[in-house]
């Protein structure tokens, strides 16, 4: 094919410019900003003050920020365990030759196409409502009185309510990723196992699970990327002020940039905001490297 310089430019320039403007330039500048103390987000460079690692140090000495990191890590590990196991379970059920597979698949994935604000509102205003909510009615109907009277949205239980409702939506997405992996495993493995007399449980632990290592990696990385951007759900569970049980780094960052009426303790500082961005990106990078190292799958060909 003849190379055509004008065409090449016309085809690649708009995309490249937007990419450089949206990702490359801001990324580099964020790294610099994280080492300066910057009062207002709109301050010109001349009003930045070099602060070295000071932003990072002051972030980690602020108890609300430490709490936000702790919450994020809890969501990442506990939520990750819940989401990835349940989604794997559903994926295995769906791949076992069930009728109506595409209907169930579509119904379970549904929350992912709905606005998170609408989804969270349904959970907060209906499922967790203490007087007319779903859980109260459900537990009362099955006779679990203590659970029926649980105040899901009080300070003590709010985190778990948040975690549960968030995972419910994410499970559908991760389930589809698992299914795409399971479907790629050749039938001959299972046929051979059947001949050797392996039962369903043995087939799962000795064939399905080991061959899904690559997919597990994809799932962990995707989960971590979503968790690094965790924001809407936290804001909806504590709409007006960041609350220690549900605060996450992005909420803290938002307050750092724009302030909040009720949080005087957090001083506005765009430099620290940039440092939060760096911390979250490093978190994703770290998980990516770690899963690559722990879950090497190139020795497996299938």
């Amino acid at each position, binding site marked *: 094919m003849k190379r055509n310089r004008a065409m090449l430019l016309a085809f690649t320039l708009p995309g490249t410019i937007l*990419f450089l403007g949206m*990702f490359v330039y801001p990324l580099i500048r964020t790294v610099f900003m994280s080492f300066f103390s910057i009062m207002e987000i709109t301050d010109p460079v001349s009003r930045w003050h070099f602060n070295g690692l000071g932003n990072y140090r002051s972030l980690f000495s602020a108890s609300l920020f430490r709490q936000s990191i702790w919450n994020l890590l809890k969501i990442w590990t506990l939520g990750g365990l819940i989401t990835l196991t349940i989604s794997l379970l559903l994926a295995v059920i769906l791949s076992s030759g069930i009728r109506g597979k595409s209907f169930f698949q579509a119904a379970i994935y549904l929350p992912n*196409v709905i*606005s998170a604000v609408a989804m969270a509102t349904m959970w907060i205003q209906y499922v967790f409502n203490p007087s007319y909510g779903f859980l109260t009615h459900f537990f009362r109907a099955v006779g679990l009185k203590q659970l029926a009277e649980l105040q899901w949205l009080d300070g003590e239980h709010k985190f778990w309510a948040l975690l549960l409702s968030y995972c419910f939506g994410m499970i559908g997405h991760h389930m*589809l990723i698992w299914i795409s992996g399971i479907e790629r495993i050749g039938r001959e493995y299972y046929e051979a196992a059947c001949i050797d007399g392996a039962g369903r449980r043995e087939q799962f632990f000795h064939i399905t699970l080991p061959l899904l290592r690559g997919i597990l990696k994809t799932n962990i990385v995707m989960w971590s990327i979503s968790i690094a951007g965790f924001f809407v759900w936290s804001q909806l569970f504590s709409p007006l002020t960041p609350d220690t049980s549900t605060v996450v780094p992005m909420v803290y960052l938002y307050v750092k940039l724009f302030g909040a009426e009720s949080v005087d303790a957090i001083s506005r500082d765009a430099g620290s905001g940039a440092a939060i961005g760096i911390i979250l*990106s490093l978190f*994703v990078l770290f998980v990516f490297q770690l899963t690559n190292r722990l879950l090497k799958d190139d020795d497996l060909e299938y």
Partner: protein
Amino acid sequence: MRAIERKRYSTLHLGRELRLLPGYLVLIAWVLFTAALLFWVLAASLSTTAEIFSGEVLKFPTGFHFENYVKAWVSSNVSVFFGNSLFYACVSCALLILISAPYAYALERFTFPGRRWIRSSLAAAMGVPIVMVIIPIYTVVARAGLLKHPSSNRIILILLFVAAKIPYTTTFLGTYFSNIPKSYEEAAAIDGCHPIETFWRIVFPLARGGISTVTIFNFIAIWNEYFLSLLFVNSDALRPVALGLFSMINGMKYSGEWAGLFASVIIVFLPTFILYLFLSKKIIGGISGGIKG
């Protein structure tokens, strides 16, 4: 293969179905819960606030209150949010295809300096948390005064939505173009067709499956977008649905219009839900197809 499998399913093996029973129960319980959630919100949106609080949502003692929808649409400004989201999503999706399709094609078919770097950076950018890039962009945009006027504010929003989705859209379309045989372009070149024309008239239509899938995903993402709008929308009149809904929830304490809130939730929920009803096969295929093991 498919046909054979289907045939096997259609003959009822009682033993087999019985073995699958626990699986069915889990799936049915899951779907029933989802359905209960949606039906209750739908029922609440047709009740009065008093009925919601007295737990009479599914009884409709005073009939259906469609006026909740009228109120939400007109006096709670949901129509404005709805129009905004529709505008942002449609314009951004069109721009994304106009920019990303040729971009992906050029990156797939031509060799030029920087090609490898661009391809791997685009892939890497999909893992970059948005907070990592948003602060400098805000600085530049706000200092240039672009958030002061509604029209420039709108343009900035659309540019942000488009730019944020360029890596995903381009990477997604790249795999589609790589599966289209080069022979079409070679034949067109022999016939004297200009490469630009070849792309738009021959290759682009061949990739329509991928283009429509990626557009559905982009549409849903932009329709539901929250964080960028929260930062960059400077006036109530420019709010998209997610942000409008959030401001309504915050105002609930004062207005107490719970039935209206549920009506708004349904209005916000409907467009993507309807899209999903018709296109769920394509959407689910698009996710499974994009996964590399």
